[in-house]
């Protein structure tokens, strides 16, 4: 039960990561590898803010703010110019990989490669019956619930959410109808970076962080996106949650070394039996590409 719950909290964070990655992928078709670097960056900003004595509140806002800025920076420097040139997906991907490398190495140069922690000592623990949850877990669990809830409400109920869904469907048509696709894209990249930053802060509060943790986070995002199904944001969220639960069960019953293998096995099985993903619809031939 405790394991299930830990898995759920972990899964909630994964779900948000899946959402962050899938957000960019489903609307712009960009595989946003640099998101991993943004994920790695956020805790360092918070750490620095704490060091110069800004306190948790300001630090959190600053960390998410910087992440959003870097996300938009990626769009401005890489993906928008590439799109203008009508470059193929490979160019976007290679550019993003390059950005990932540049950012991660910059972090390592600025802050060093050692594992860092956000707080010392044992975290406060709250109990309910047999369950034990740390403050960090509570914080990230509830935070994720609120964010995901707010996101889907926003997506379904507001004008901007509608434009957003329209862009996922057909960006060219949207810009022909007089909407500013560029602004919307900036918004998407910023929002995805903010979500990734939140995930990074949540999980690094518990376990510490180093510059190279972003890769695994992106991999989770990728698997959630693919397994969840092309274009299905809710699918990505659910699969992220599921991944968290499965991985913590795997760690409990075997050992931590098989975590990655378990993730990958799920991906392989789903791709083999349901290539469109669990919640994706099959595309008609003319929709592909």
């Amino acid at each position, binding site marked *: 039960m405790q394991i299930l719950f830990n898995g759920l909290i972990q899964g909630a964070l994964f779900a948000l990561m899946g959402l962050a990655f899938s957000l960019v*992928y489903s609307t712009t078709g960009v595989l946003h590898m640099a998101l991993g670097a943004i994920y790695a960056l956020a805790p360092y900003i918070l750490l620095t803010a704490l060091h110069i004595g800004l306190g948790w509140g300001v630090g959190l806002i600053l960390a998410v703010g910087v992440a959003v800025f870097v996300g938009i920076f990626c769009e401005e420097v890489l993906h928008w110019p590439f799109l203008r040139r009508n470059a193929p997906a490979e160019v976007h991907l290679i*550019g993003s990989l390059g*950005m990932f490398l540049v950012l991660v190495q910059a972090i390592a140069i600025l802050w060093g490669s050692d594992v860092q922690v956000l707080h010392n000592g044992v975290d406060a623990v709250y109990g309910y019956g047999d369950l034990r949850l740390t403050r960090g877990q509570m914080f990230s669990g509830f935070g994720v619930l609120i964010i995901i809830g707010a996101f889907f409400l926003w997506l379904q109920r507001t004008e901007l959410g509608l434009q957003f869904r329209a862009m996922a469907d057909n960006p060219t048509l949207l810009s022909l109808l007089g909407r500013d696709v560029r602004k919307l894209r900036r918004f998407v990249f910023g929002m995805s970076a903010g979500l990734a930053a939140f995930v990074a802060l949540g999980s690094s509060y518990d376990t510490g962080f180093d510059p190279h943790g972003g890769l695994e986070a992106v*991999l989770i995002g990728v698997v959630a996106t693919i397994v969840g199904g092309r274009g299905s944001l809710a699918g990505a969220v659910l699969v992220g949650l599921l991944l968290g639960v499965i991985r913590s069960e795997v760690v409990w019953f075997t050992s931590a070394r098989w975590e*990655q293998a378990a993730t990958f096995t799920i991906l392989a099985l789903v791709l083999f039996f349901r290539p469109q993903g669990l919640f994706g619809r099959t595309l008609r031939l003319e929709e592909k590409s």
Partner: protein
Amino acid sequence: MSYLLHLLIFFQIYAVVAMSLNLLIGYGGLLQVAHAAYFGVGAYTAALLWTKLGVGFIPGLLGAALMSSLLSLLVSLSAWRFRGDYFVMISLAVQVVLYSLMYNFMDITNGPYGITAIPKPVIMDSIFATQEATFAIYVVIVGMLAFILAAAKLSPFGLSLQAMRDDELAARSLGIPVRRLKVEAFMLASAMVGVAGGLYASYISYIDPTSFTLDESILMLSMVIVGGTGNVRGPLVGAAVLIAIPELLRFLSLPDTVAAHIRLLAYGLLLILMMHWRPQGLAGRYRFE
């Protein structure tokens, strides 16, 4: 002199790596980011065959080729169904999983401690212990590999690969067995890079998993991208340029901890710049469309 020879030997090893990756990217249009993992599989297989089983130098290299090409099925079978984005993501997952296997299979690979005292090349009872001798024997082996690759590229196999790259549907309609072609291309490329891994292990005489990370895969990718895809000389140019960069950085006399990060940062930057201004590479023929 020994410094120059050292660089030349490295150039030989990476020339094989870049040429084999070019077979996939430039000729097959199959962008993959798991090449360092196969390099590692080859290095480990050869090193273990030499140190644990006492197999001869050449059989060890052949074993490495066999192992890498067998494991290449992991990527190539998924290439049956997927092109573009999904395929890249799957190769990313394969990279991470193979790396975590190298890192975690303590019994076989000795985990993070790596394998030490890998013997120098021995052929027919003569030991190639000096750098000059290693260089000479590597010239022969690398020459043979380059010949095989160049021949494969000019053969009907290479031509149908290019046809598949340009239009898979049209290629199939002309009776080109696309699935078999993909498997064969991956087997050939992985076997080559496996041998390169063996050569690397024997020359360095010590390997550990950190030499086979995603960063390393991106480095290999940038060799092909920077040099140019789709012809024989492109990857050679790329390998030479990317091996020269860290040596030039050496003259800046940066502290060791920073230098490694600066090197990777430069690769990332190079990738971004190439994608902006010269997507076909310095000396390339094919560009992603």
